[in-house]
Structures are given as structure tokens and as C-alpha cells.
């Protein structure tokens, strides 16, 4: 990935529904085309962040598990 994220967020310790709530609030703070990177510890984000991206129409660029940390990057599309 060559683009650098505009925002880097820490969702460690947050449980459902807060990762989704926080990412929804954060996406309004960046411009269309910009990226947000976030880390979380809730395994629920593996299913919920892709679902959130599908229903809002934003792009899930990456989502990966590193040890017990879940790291994802989303791109504002509209």
C-alpha cells in the first residue's frame, strides 16, 4: 500500500457496536478518496467491518489479523 492514511484510530478494548459506530463517525472527518486505518481487539470486527463497508458503500481496503490485533483500512468513497 502506497497511500498513507489520513487518520489512524485505536479501537483496542472496544466491543460491539462501538468499532462500527466510531468508524462511521470518523469517515465523515476525511475527504472522499482518503484512507482511515484502525486497530481493534474485538474479533467481531472481522465480520462487522466488511458488513459496514458493504452497507455504507465505502471501500474496505485491507483487513488482517496480526496476533490478537485486528488491523483494517477503509477508504471513503462518497
Amino acid at each position, binding site marked *: 500500500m502506497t497511500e498513507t492514511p489520513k487518520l489512524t484510530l485505536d479501537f483496542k478494548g472496544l466491543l460491539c457496536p462501538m468499532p462500527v459506530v466510531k468508524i462511521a463517525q470518523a469517515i465523515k472527518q476525511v475527504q472522499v478518496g482518503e484512507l482511515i486505518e484502525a486497530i481493534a481487539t474485538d474479533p467481531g470486527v472481522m465480520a462487522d467491518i466488511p458488513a459496514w463497508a458493504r452497507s*455504507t458503500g465505502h471501500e474496505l481496503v485491507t483487513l488482517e489479523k496480526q496476533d490478537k490485533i485486528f488491523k483494517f483500512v477503509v477508504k471513503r468513497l462518497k
Partner: protein
Amino acid sequence: MFEKKEKLTLVVLSGDLDKVMASYIIASGAAAAGMEVVMFFTFWGLKAIQRDGVFTGKGLFGRMLGVMNRGGLNAIGPSRLNMGGMGRWMFKLMMKQKGVTQLPELRQAAIDLGVKLMPCQMSMDVMEINCDHLIPETTEPVGVATMLEHAKESSIQFFI
């Protein structure tokens, strides 16, 4: 004719901690996903939008109800195993230990994401609850026709 929108209508009849929690989680999740969300609070559900530490009721029965059936997010207990408040204390502690977002913060998140909170006029009349007993973020009290109008154009409707 109504066209269905990306919209969720929730009817919250229950005033129990667990069910109110589920309601606010669903509402904030839907709002986060870009849906328009309307929550209609009726009967026991009014407790979920009552101010904390306020006693409701005008007449004898109304005031008795207000004392025995305290509203507000800090007063409500789980639907099972409350055991005179012990269950509430235990669940709150367990949720805190796991880092689950507490009810007041959850409701605030829903409000910040634009969720509309509508109290039911008829329940307010029966239970002698007035607008001053409710949190200021609620809309004016409404009736069943208003709720149905929202439900009709919603792609999802829940009754909790």
C-alpha cells in the same frame, strides 16, 4: 404510495436493561451503517428515555408507579435474575470488566448519529409521565399513526 427506504423503525416496549441495551445497539449500528433510524418508546420502554433520578406521577397511583418502577438508564434492571437490584449490579460490573460500552454512552452514540427518539403519548398519559421527565433529545410525543408511517417506509422493523 410509500417507497421503502434504508430505514429502521424500532418499537421499544420493554424497559429492561438487556432489551434496552439491545435496542440501542441495533439503533446505533444501523445509524452507523448509514440508515435512517426511528425509535418509538411505549409503555415500559419509556424508562429508556427518562431522566435519571426523577420521580414521575401526579395522582396516588401514578406516584406509586413512579416509585416502584423507576426509570432512567441507571435504574433499570435485567429482565431475568435482577434479584432486587443485585442482578443489575452484577451485570453492570461484568459488562464493565469486559469493556462493553455502558448504556448512557450507547444512547449518546445513537443520538449523535442522528437516531430519532419518539415517546408514545398515550403511555405517557397512562403512566403520568410528562415531557419534563424525559431527556431533552426526545421528539414531541407521538401516536401509533406516526409510528406506522415510519414503519411502513422502513426496510426493517423491530419490536422489542
